[in-house]
């Protein structure tokens, strides 16, 4: 609290970034949030921004109306405030600068967040995902793969989990030898087992081969992996880096496997760029789509120049290669990049998602993230900038993974149990630091922080709201006939994910949402079925025979189940906003209308002249707005309201 100089500033303007619209309200600064409350008393709009979500704060030069403050968030919200007094603006600015750069984990929100659960509930939450059970589901341990205790004390590899699965023929000396030959000690271990063909997906980091170094234990390790699979005489080694990068690494004593030294391997470069390229690419993308009055030409050229979709496609292409090698050829695959925690995590998890329908369910997807990202040590703290650290370590690697999954859900609308809303929520909380799951860089660190004792699990929270994340079109029967997804790699199937990158930009969204509508229908279906059944039972008890009574016309008056308030679920949230929408659009066309008119002649076309009430969206609002309490955590508010 000592960092907050001015807890409240009045008469602050919030400007829409794509139109000239602005609303006036009060800005509050709390220990965890920046809150903006619209002054209009009837239906005040509120915006809650968690400090952890803020990526940057920028103070622009003073204007006649005040001092502009631009805040960019990691969940792609961009807010533009104008504070009337420069002094207030500076206070808010400097307080935020300090608040959004926590220096120790203890300062993170997760350690103060309390959803009013007791210890038992909290523990249960942490037990929801059990990786040992997951390996058992895959059929491991088995006659070829075993659990090794070599890393029980994190002695062989600090960034790996305690429990690791290796080929039965890989003895401890081999493992230890191999780990010494691999960057950061990340030796080859099992991450997915394709039972049908007994083929394994393994992961590791790059070998310390330099120009000519060899390691017999490492060679034995790969041989052991190869021997564990009788279906194929060779193992694919996928180096997910571009060849040039791998070559450059050789000069630093690292590099890639020499096919001459390793018997029975097939080596393959995939060409996914490194974290720095990805960071720059996203930056460019956001600049392009953040442009006001963007033309179609600039949009498409910008999309191309940012390279973002090219990178997304590269990851998906690699995953398809992996899935094909395993499911079609029945070959085992070893995947690595440099350290084996960024691109390797992307490719392994996405490949498994293509192969195994289980990972396309809500629970399975959590397991997948827990396994390939959290336990195998994707550096969430560094990549998501949880603590004030090296900005060169920040990179949207996990965001890319979520986007790849979204691209697949677009190609296979019936293959996933969850909707994009689920992906967006996960993204939200990876950055919110509200739950313990993603804190720190690896399991060892999480144990030191006593995450499970001191914080809550996101998975329990998401599962408790499961009905909000369901994909109503999900059809598990399709997965029985075609368990392996074969996505098209044609570039025209990769699209810009508007609902992620423009999540908070009101003017960007369709006014009606199929997803929400169908979800409501399916829920109503279930409810109706229940009512019908109880009544039938009651009747039977009373000995009355059922007879059909009259025909029915569907009524829309029924109370709808609670929905999170979000733009991506379509429809304005309140009448006030409905009107605002209207006016924004007015502004869009209105501006254009005036463009080639001589100045001064535009007086006749007044924005005020149109009656927004008349053509507001009352019906849409009536139909979609849920009268019930909003879900505790909603995008609109960023985080739980009750904690403040």
């Amino acid at each position: 609290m000592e960092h907050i100089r001015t807890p409240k500033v009045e008469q602050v303007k919030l400007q829409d970034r794509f139109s000239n619209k602005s609303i006036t309200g009060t800005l509050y600064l709390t220990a965890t949030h920046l809150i903006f409350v619209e002054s209009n008393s009837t239906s005040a709009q509120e915006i809650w921004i968690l400090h952890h979500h803020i990526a940057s704060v920028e103070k622009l030069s003073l204007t006649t109306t005040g001092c502009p403050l631009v805040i960019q968030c990691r969940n792609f919200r961009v807010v533009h405030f104008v504070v009337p007094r420069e002094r207030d603006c500076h206070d808010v600015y400097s307080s935020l600068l300090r608040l959004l750069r926590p220096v120790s984990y203890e300062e993170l929100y997760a350690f103060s967040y309390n959803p009013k659960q007791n210890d038992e509930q909290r523990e249960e939450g942490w037990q929801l995902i059990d990786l040992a059970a997951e390996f058992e589901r895959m059929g491991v341990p088995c006659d070829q793969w075993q659990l090794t205790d070599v890393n029980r004390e994190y002695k062989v590899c600090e960034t790996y989990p305690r429990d690791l699965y290796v080929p039965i023929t890989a003895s401890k000396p081999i493992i230890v030898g191999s780990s010494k030959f691999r960057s950061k000690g990340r030796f080859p271990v099992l991450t997915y087992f394709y039972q049908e063909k007994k083929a394994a997906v393994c992961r590791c980091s790059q070998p310390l081969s330099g120009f000519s170094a060899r390691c017999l234990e490492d060679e034995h390790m790969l041989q052991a992996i190869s021997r564990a699979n009788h279906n194929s005489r060779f193992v694919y080694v996928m180096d997910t880096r571009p060849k040039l990068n791998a070559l450059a690494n050789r000069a630093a004593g690292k590099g890639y496997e020499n096919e001459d030294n390793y018997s029975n391997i097939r080596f393959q470069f995939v060409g996914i760029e490194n974290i720095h390229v990805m960071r720059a690419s996203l930056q460019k993308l956001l600049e392009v789509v953040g442009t006001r009055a963007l033309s179609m030409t600039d949009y498409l050229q910008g999309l191309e120049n940012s390279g973002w979709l090219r990178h997304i496609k590269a990851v998906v292409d690699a995953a398809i290669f992996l899935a094909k090698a395993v499911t079609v050829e029945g070959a085992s695959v070893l995947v690595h990049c440099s350290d084996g925690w960024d691109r390797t995590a992307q490719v392994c998890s996405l490949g498994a998602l293509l192969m195994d329908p289980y990972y396309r369910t809500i629970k399975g997807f959590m397991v997948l993230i827990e396994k390939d990202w959290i336990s195998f040590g994707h550096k969430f703290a560094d990549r998501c900038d949880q603590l004030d650290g090296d900005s060169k370590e920040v990179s949207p690697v996990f965001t890319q993974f979520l986007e790849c999954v979204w691209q697949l859900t677009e190609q296979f609308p019936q293959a996933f149990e969850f909707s994009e809303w689920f992906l967006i929520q996960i993204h939200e909380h990876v950055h919110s630091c509200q739950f313990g799951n993603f804190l720190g860089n690896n399991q060892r660190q999480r144990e030191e922080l006593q995450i499970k004792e001191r914080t809550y699990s996101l998975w329990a929270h998401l599962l408790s709201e499961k009905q909000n994340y369901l994909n109503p079109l999900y059809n598990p029967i399709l997965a029985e006939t075609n368990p392996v997804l074969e996505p098209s790699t044609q570039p025209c199937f990769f699209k810009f994910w508007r609902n992620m990158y423009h999540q908070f930009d009101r003017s960007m969204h369709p006014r009606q949402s199929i997803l929400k509508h169908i979800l409501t229908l399916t829920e109503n279906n279930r409810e109706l079925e229940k009512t019908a059944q109880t009544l039938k039972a009651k009747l039977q008890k009373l000995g009355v025979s059922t007879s059909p009574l009259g025909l029915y016309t569907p009524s829309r008056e029924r109370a709808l189940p609670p929905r999170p308030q979000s733009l991506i679920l379509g429809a304005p949230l309140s009448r006030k906003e409905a009107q605002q929408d209207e006016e924004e659009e007015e502004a869009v066309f209105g501006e254009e209308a005036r463009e080639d008119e001589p100045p001064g002649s535009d007086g006749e076309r007044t924005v005020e002249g149109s009656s927004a009430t008349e053509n507001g969206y009352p019906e849409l609002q009536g139909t979609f707005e849920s009268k019930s309490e909003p879900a505790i955590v909603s995008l609109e508010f960023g985080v739980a309201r009750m904690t403040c």
Partner: protein
Amino acid sequence: MEFSEHIKTANVEDVILRQPFRPSIKGTLCVTGHHLLFSDREEDSSWQLLLLLRNIDAIEKRITGSSGTITIKCKDLCVLHLDIPGMEQCLNIASSIEALSSFENIPEMYPFFHRPQDLSLEDTWGLSSTEEDFTHMQELYDRWRLSLVNSDFSICPSYPSAVIVPRSVDDETLVKAARFRQGGRFPVLCYYHSKNGMVIMRSSQPMTGANRKRCREDELLLQAVIDGSELGYIVDTRSSQQAQQARMTGGGFESKSCYSHWKRLHRHLERGKVLQESLIKLVEACGDQSHSMDRWLSKLENSKWLSHVHCTLSTAGLVAECVERDGHSVLVHGSDGTDTTLLVTTLAQLIVDPQSRTLRGFLRLLEKEWIQAGHPFQQRCAHSAYSHARLKQESPVFLLLLDCVWQLSRQFPLALEFNEMLLLRLAQEAYASDFGTFLCNCEQERCALGVKEKTHCLFQFLLRPSEREQFLNPLYEHTDLAIWPCVQPQSLHLWSGFFLRWTEHAQNMEEARQEIWTIVNQYREKAGVEETSQALSKHCEPLSVVENLMEELTVL
């Protein structure tokens, strides 16, 4: 002319057909006057391909040894391959297809021969007419009237026989105003906004020419539209520079001094050849097999198709805004008034008029704004994206309309009663059809050729109970509000249903669509059950009193 002259080889056996979504099959190929027929030889399966020759946009032949392959590229973007044994036969078939598919003589086209058993030529042709519409619009009567000045198509050959004009303007004035407008297309009413009495008019450009000619009658006519007092907008679908240039060739625009109560807004929309080339480039990009993301995005951008969608929707939004929000009447025109003008007026109506968002309403809108208002379908849809023929008057304006309607349906999935299937069907029928609806360039030609007597009407056909179902949007909910599309480039998409229709992906989407239907139907059924149960629970209430009594008795 005899079709048989062109058919050198009518039948070929053992032809292999390769097409999207199906395994290749062996069968017999047969060429008739209007169709390409293919049927497999299996006795039990009666699978056939019946392809309208008119649908063929381009064919390519490749001879290897003694056999050949013909690649058929259709106007609906489907591509088929036929492996034909025998070089001579292959060449014969190819030349027959080439000759027969490029027939331009309208009375010999298939709609004049299409005689299905369940349709009768006596059936009503068309959904409605201006006269009929007018009789139902009483609110128009004190300011507007029906004029039959064009009943013999002499004033304006591309207009229908009846038009709606301001009541205060007599036919003589109309005749004079028509002379001042290109092709005689004087300003007529196309939409009346009953909420505020404002209207959308359309016309062609005024023939002011280089020496700024005036026409008193034309000015009077427009003055009568806005009733003297207020202000009206003229949305010119050309840039102001283009409008200036048009004066050199006798055309022009309404100058401020002569039309003081009208304010001109220029919105440049591409038309003609530029649009056709855009389509060709886009289709080429969609077929690109290089799998490179950069290449795809640059080709997509280079085609400019989405830019055209963007401009069209924003212009339509502007017109709708003038009428609905600003409360002013609008006159829309470009140069000819038969292409971009119709595009804009149609979309504007779709945005503000809930009537036009029903299945029937939309088809009627198309009939009124495109068929009867004289969009030259015969010229514009002669060829599609694959044709190697030299471009003449081809331009995919109608396709652009359907694309824009699809964008609306994406943004408002509950607002339109019809679905994407209808748009796809219309896209196909406009280029090659069994029906007479899209034949000819205007009503005059249709009358001269007896289209309405000798062919069947597509719109009537689509509305038959047996057909109708497949074109309905299961999620439709009527709304009286205007549907304002978002025109940011991030919210506009490639119409994959059309441009990527023949890819694997399309099938997943089809399955998802089916699923939505199932859910909605379940809901409807169960909601029926609920009504029942509500009634039942009412019955239960008195019974439970009895039940309680019984229980008490047992206790006692």
